[in-house]
């Protein structure tokens, strides 16, 4: 077998194993939350009788191990069950939210990834001169401000004062693509500001690292211009760490944006998860946890595989 196929297969197997481990953790985690589902559904209105009735009905009296395997097998068949709180089919409502989350993440990624890499390249080209310093200063400032504050500031100036984009980014299926893009403009802007610095700085560092190599000097001596050297010789060799950090940020855009969702009232997966955590809707929390774990593990796997493929020594073994 080609060693690269073997390596990739190993990565995939490891990913799946990791996913199973994550599922155990998710299940165990939801068991140790204080209070139980019945109590959370009824809240302040819980009485002894209504609690007992609800627990019985929700099957909370069965042992945890039995519940874990039941849950895992149906999840593998694509059946995530129904939400305890409102009886909705989880796969269906989660699917809708996931679509929204992926839409927002994709919009933010389309803006931020090329921007970050371009800015990184510019920063390298003008290293230690004012463009480099300006780029670093601006991106490090936006990453240092908490995202909810960035959100409020943008909402105040752009939505309330100027009226350019709505502060409530509630997208719905009836909207046209253009309307949707306008609706998510503010959250996309905030997310871009939040992830930009990380990717930009990594790009800059990775390329600068390569720039020390002898072949870069050769390229320069060959008479290539600064940007050409970076684009043709430095960037391809610095791709592995850049892809790594890009994937990490993409994962963040999918699983970590609940604060931005709340500030802009975006109907995404994060808000959906939080709502159900506070109601102890265990099946939903587990399903979301599983999706988040899959996204995280999946994207990291992609990063690993890309860096394997980007390594010529692995692509062309002797």
């Amino acid at each position, binding site marked *: 077998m080609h060693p690269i196929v073997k390596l990739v297969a190993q990565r995939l197997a490891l990913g799946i194993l990791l996913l199973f481990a994550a599922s155990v953790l998710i299940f165990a985690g939801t068991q140790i939350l204080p209070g139980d589902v019945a109590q959370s559904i009824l809240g302040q*209105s819980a009485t002894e009788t209504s609690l007992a009735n609800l627990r019985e009905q929700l099957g909370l009296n069965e042992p945890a191990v039995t519940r874990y395997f039941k849950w895992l097998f149906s999840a593998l068949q694509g059946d995530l069950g129904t939400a305890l*709180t409102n009886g909705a089919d989880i796969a269906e409502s989660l699917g809708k939210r996931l679509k929204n989350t992926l839409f927002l993440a994709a919009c933010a990624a389309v803006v931020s990834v090329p921007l970050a890499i371009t800015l990184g390249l510019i920063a390298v080209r003008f290293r230690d001169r004012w463009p480099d310093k300006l780029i670093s200063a601006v991106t490090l400032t936006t990453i240092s401000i908490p995202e909810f504050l960035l959100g*409020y500031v943008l909402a105040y100036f752009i939505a309330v004062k100027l009226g350019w984009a709505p502060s409530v980014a509630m997208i719905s299926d009836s909207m046209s693509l253009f309307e949707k893009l306008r609706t998510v403009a503010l959250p996309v802007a905030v997310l871009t500001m939040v992830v930009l610095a990380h990717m930009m700085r990594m790009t800059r560092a990775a390329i600068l690292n390569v720039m020390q190599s002898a072949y870069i000097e050769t390229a320069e001596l060959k008479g290539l211009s600064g940007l050409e050297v970076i684009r043709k010789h430095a960037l391809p060799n610095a791709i592995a760490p850049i892809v790594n950090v890009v994937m990490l940020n993409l994962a963040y855009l999918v699983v970590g944006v609940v604060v931005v969702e709340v500030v802009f009232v975006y109907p995404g997966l994060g808000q959906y998860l939080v709502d159900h955590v506070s109601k102890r809707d265990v099946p939903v929390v587990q399903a979301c946890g599983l999706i988040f774990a899959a996204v995280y593990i999946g994207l990291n796997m992609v990063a690993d595989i890309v860096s394997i493929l980007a390594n010529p020594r692995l692509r062309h073994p002797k």
Partner: protein
Amino acid sequence: MNEKIEYLKRRVAARKMSRREFVGRATAMGVSAAAAGTMFANAVQAAGPIRGGTIKAGLSGGASSDTLDPALVASEATHGILRTWSDTLVNVSRDGAVVPRLAEEITSSPDAKTWNFRIRKGVEFHNGKTMTPEDVVATIERHTGDDAKSGAQGIVKGIESMAIDGDIVAITLSQANADFPYLMADYHLAIQPNGGKDDPNAGIGTGAYIIESNEPGVRTTFRRNPNDWDENRGYADNVEILVINDATARTSALQSGQVDMINRVDPKVAGLLDRAPNLTVKNVSGRGHYVFIMRIETDEFVNNDLRMALKLAINRQEMVDKILRGYGSVGNDFPINAAYPLFDDTIEQREYDPERAAEYYRKSGHDGSPIILRTSDAAFPGAVEAAQLFQESARAAGIPLEVKREPSDGYWSEVWNVKPFCASYWSGRPVQDQMYSTAYLSTAEWNDTQWKRPEFDAMLIEAKAELDPARRKELYSRMARMLRDEGGLILPMFNDFVDAISTRVMGYEDDPNGELMDHFAMQRCWVEG
């Protein structure tokens, strides 16, 4: 000049002049812009409702785990949605009277044990089915019984039997209750086809609006019910309820015109927000209150001297000023205020008195170890800060309080009604009987202060059956005094409902029963063209 203004107002009332035009002309005559805006609003208001348009409300208190089942409604957004598509037998008016709705007429036997509700004829559900007395009985049945997971379970518990006679539903109670019609105004008891026994989540009712789409925790859209039985509501063609839980997002949605009305304006920003153009902040004093609860049967608080010391060691006015920013009024350690019928306003107001508090504290013989006060953001907005203020004012009386902040998560199951001393809130009830029966009757499930006095229970039951208002008022007054002096309740403040509405919304009226006109604002307000 007055004549000219009057002329302009008539033009407005005849819908021949826009706000912009009116304000422009009025200011040209030397009227301030703010006054002109108010004049315009009054002129439009006087002209009566306009039909058409869309009303959008941004409400807090919704989650993607919500359902349309009226029995499970517990938070504001779900309450607003329920009101918009459903009706109850009766409503409670702004001045505290019972208003017939799906019941046309209510009569009782002289002993207040049997109540007859004559059900309105010719009312159609959204699915085209006619509403019948059978549906009413089925609805009440669904909320009764031990297996009902209903917020109205305690309310319908006292029903012994129900009978249908033509268009009359006769309800017999196990115990006389002069206030029974008020209980039927509870929003959980929304009348559903076959009582919602077939599908409680269907969202089919007799209300002013028909649900078009419902995405829990995000948005619910409605269109006007063309067969509505009540023509004095449902002015807008469409209603949208958006769930916006973040307070800042809610205010900015209103400011940027994405919604027309919002609930729960943070008192901290209400004053500032009111200065913004195109919107008004509305605060209405209601019956809701923020409390500190001492459980009388615990080792510490079994001592009434200690309870009294703590009641005297809290600075109520400071709480109203700093926690509610003036959007509220001081409490007096019993859960009733002037918003209730039969309130006795001669009961002396308890003041902050560190010296007497210190005296009582010494008398109680407390060992001087810190008394743990549990609090959380979940208890009420500003509960953590309120507990800290309490700690400071008690320190001045030499009473050591230790504030322990608990997570919001699980507060209602792990702390409230469990720990000896904690912060909490009550949203109030339409009548005194209901408030006392819910939380101060010995056998009540929610008797969080463990107030168990046979003589208090006896007075409550006597007042329940008493049809003479003077005698009832006297009984309630004695109960209030008793609770105030011996109970485990520290009630520093009654909170106002603080809403904000856009100036394009007309017809808003203060309603002490709840925020946003007791959630009727979406169907009773209208928008200018």
